[in-house]
């Protein structure tokens, strides 16, 4: 049944998938390990190997990476802030809607869903102006609130689906024993929601870490920038130092990729089931 032709086809598809997936990442690393003046890839195999670009980035020894550590810290603050606040807000909302049966809970779920369906690039424009009115432009709070506003609708929606699987009888049993809503939240709801909470927390963290457009609009002071915007700003120069850019980009890309793979099980189970109802 497993004919030779079939096996060869499968191998070829696998090879194509592998090359397709890895090529831009490989190319990024290839340029990152080339000397600054040899960022031109003339072949597939590496012709140079130097860690000099990584040292330049980490040592902030170039105008363009002058605030590398400050910008890395900004990215961390915004990502962690977004994750913590999104979780707090959406756990509260989800618990109130699904476990305390808040009247009007369905309407709130629907407006959350509606936010989830607005293309992010379109909301960015009025959001930018609004953040100006609130006086938050060029502070980490503008990014944190914007990312919370984008992450929590999805969080609430995924949590609604997970919470629906917790039997009501558990709440009723706890109620008979005299549990208050907060005890119910702490002792019944949270322990059972841990996998979803992990998935949502990581989702919000990565969303904020990866965000380019909102940060590009709302942050402009070099000391306030997040790393992706700082990387994008390399392009403003006619002869951008590409090997430095690729090295800094690789450093920036590493933490979220590692985090994703560490929590892969939660992410795939939690997000795939929520993104499109299955």
């Amino acid at each position, binding site marked *: 049944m497993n004919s030779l032709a079939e096996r060869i086809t499968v191998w070829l598809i696998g090879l194509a998938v592998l090359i397709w*997936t890895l090529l831009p990442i490989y190319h990024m690393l290839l340029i990152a390990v080339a000397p600054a003046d040899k960022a031109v890839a003339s072949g597939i195999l590496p012709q140079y190997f130097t860690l000099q670009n990584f040292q330049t980035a980490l040592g902030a020894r170039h105008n363009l990476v002058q605030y590398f550590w400050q910008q890395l810290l900004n990215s961390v603050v915004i990502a962690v802030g977004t994750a913590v606040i999104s979780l707090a807000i959406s756990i509260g909302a989800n618990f*109130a809607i699904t476990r305390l049966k808040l009247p009007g809970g369905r309407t709130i779920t*629907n407006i959350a869903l509606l936010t989830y369906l607005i293309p992010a690039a379109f909301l960015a*424009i009025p959001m930018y102006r*609004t953040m100006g009115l609130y006086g938050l432009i060029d502070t980490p709070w503008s990014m944190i609130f914007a990312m919370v*506003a984008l992450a929590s609708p999805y969080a609430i929606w995924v949590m609604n689906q997970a919470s629906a699987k917790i039997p009501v009888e558990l709440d009723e049993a706890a109620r008979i024993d005299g549990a208050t809503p907060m005890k119910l939240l702490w002792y019944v709801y949270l322990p059972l929601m841990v996998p979803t909470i992990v998935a949502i927390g990581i989702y919000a963290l990565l969303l904020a870490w990866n965000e380019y457009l909102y940060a590009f609009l709302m942050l402009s002071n070099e000391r306030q920038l997040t790393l992706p915007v700082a990387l994008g700003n390399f392009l403003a120069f006619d002869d951008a130092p590409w090997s430095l850019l690729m090295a800094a980009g690789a450093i920036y890309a590493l933490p979220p990729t590692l985090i994703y793979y560490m929590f892969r099980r939660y992410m795939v189970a939690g997000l795939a089931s929520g993104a499109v109802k299955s």
Partner: protein
Amino acid sequence: MAMAVPSGAGATTAARSRAPAERDRKVAWLLVLPYLLVFALFVVYPVLYGLYLGSDPKSYTKLLQDPIFFSTIANTVIFLLIAVNLKMLVALLLSGFFLRPEHWIRWLSVLFVVAWAMPSIPTILSFRWMFNPEWGMVNALIFQWFKVEGPGWLTERHYGLFLAIMVHIWKSLPFWTLILLAARMQVPKEHYEAAAVDGAGTFQQFRHITWPAMRGIYLTSLLLSTIWSLGDFNSVYLLTGGGPLDLTQVLATLGVRYLRMDQIDVALASVIFAMPAILPLVWFMMKRLSNPGEETAK
């Protein structure tokens, strides 16, 4: 309050349970309040303010008189039609490939997701340098192998748009493949076994078992992906910057272009202009997604 209630077991229980119900409701409102605040301050207010800023008819005149506006609309439509359909079709096929029993294919599927897990900025920039017409690896190899000059990938409209579509697909293909893979795994194996006994080939199995089971989720994914792809700013902006001569702009980057030119009213006009196309999609998606137990992938 309980004091006023006349004696009788039933009445006391009712009073006792009413008090917690009221307390529950207060707690519930308190818990949902932070979300409502965020929603009001950072979604509702910006949207209303945006509608107000974009309400001047003059902005639309300016928008329609901009020579790049219609090429932008054309680009957006081409981008959406090709990117979304091609991506979903490949995701559908790949989800079948990743179901194969070979052990290495499981590992490949784990690795495959890296494009989605990684932040898009460094990889888009990597594509940009790889396809640089003068210095990039692609044209260097084309010259080495075929002794001809490679095309101006990022300096010609059609190549630029084509590459933006490719970059967009590279980034989001794993996500949709995972979604469709999850849907495929819910189709009971017995159906395939029964079909194989009846002599159905791969194609017939797909047509009569897989596709009927996945049609719903495929359509949902297609529409959701259309809405999100409309908001893809990075794939175009970081690759071509909308150039050459603003010929590869899409709606997502056009609004930001006006914003950077300090023409926020025109920026919002361009967004509001797209609403008649988006709102029916959003409305349809709301109906599909908000009714639990409605027709889905089963």
